[in-house]
């Protein structure tokens, strides 16, 4: 795979959200990345594991999740190309959650040693990584509010819009439509509802002419109603260096 294809989504996102400096782009282009293919629904790093590498999503979708004693799983976040969902493992040595693929994915692994050397010699990159993990936290705050307070239809709409806005930055939104390759069961796990309820909510949103989700593809029917339902304020995504 050509080097620019591996790092493309990451650099695109950093250009827009963090106004990455040219010399830092060159550092990222020079990073040794070991690319591996993963099948769908496969663990990348598990809760309790001591990681030695960070994982850059080159292509595909992944999720972070945690499973409780009763066996119930909560999906904590959905991840897309250009993201490094386990960047925190650089400093938090033992994973406290699972990282797995949703779809077949191309993942690029960068050793912790490489990343540590990188951010020690480049304060700009160190700051960007730090900012990235802070934005991660902002997204978790919003996820808590979403799961804790919004009724299920609004909860789903919010998760959809959040995903869309992140996909937009890397050029993966096609006329308002985008991929969201989660099963109804997984949507339930993300929203904290049963698959039956998720199925109901999806049907309701289509019947109300707001949005449809079909075979992992989201098609917005009424943008204004969609945004109103989701009560979405994109500030928490901090998608520009001034935010």
């Amino acid at each position, binding site marked *: 795979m050509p080097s620019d294809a591996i790092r493309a989504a990451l650099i695109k996102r950093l250009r827009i959200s963090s106004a990455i400096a040219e010399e830092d782009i060159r550092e990222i282009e020079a990073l040794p990345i070991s690319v591996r293919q993963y099948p769908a629904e496969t663990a990348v790093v598990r809760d309790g594991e001591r990681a030695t590498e960070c994982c850059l999503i080159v292509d595909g979708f992944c999720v972070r999740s945690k499973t409780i004693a009763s066996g119930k799983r909560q999906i904590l976040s959905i991840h897309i190309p250009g993201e490094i969902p386990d960047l925190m493992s650089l400093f938090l040595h033992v994973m406290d959650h699972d990282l797995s693929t949703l779809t077949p994915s191309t993942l690029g692994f960068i050793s912790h040693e490489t990343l540590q050397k990188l951010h020690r010699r480049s304060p700009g990159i160190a700051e960007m990584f730090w900012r990235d993990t802070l934005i991660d936290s902002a997204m978790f705050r919003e996820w808590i509010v979403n799961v804790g307070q919004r009724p299920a239809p609004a909860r789903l709409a919010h998760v959809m819009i959040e995903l869309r806005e992140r996909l937009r930055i890397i050029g993966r939104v096609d006329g308002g439509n985008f991929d969201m390759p989660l099963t109804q069961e997984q949507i339930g796990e993300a929203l904290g509802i049963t698959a*039956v309820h998720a*199925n109901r909510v999806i049907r309701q949103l289509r019947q109300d002419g707001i949005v449809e989700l079909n075979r992992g593809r989201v098609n917005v029917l009424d943008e204004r109603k969609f945004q109103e339902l989701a009560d979405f304020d994109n500030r928490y995504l901090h998608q520009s260096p001034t935010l």
Partner: protein
Amino acid sequence: MPRFYFNVRNGDRLSDQDDLGQELPDQHAAWEIATRYAGDSLRDLDGDLQPEDDWRLEVQTEDGARVFAISIRASQG
């Protein structure tokens, strides 16, 4: 695995027929999902449950037999 259908009625005003159903290992699993779904739905009714409403979740098997129902009745006074 048997397939279970989760049908919702809210008084006479809203009836939601489940035409997809869900495959579950046994009745116990269906019961767990029903109680969870009922709780989550009640939470989302968010004022839409009126006094004298009769919210009902009925769980049926593929042959139409009703396995169990959960009903929530609201009353004023």
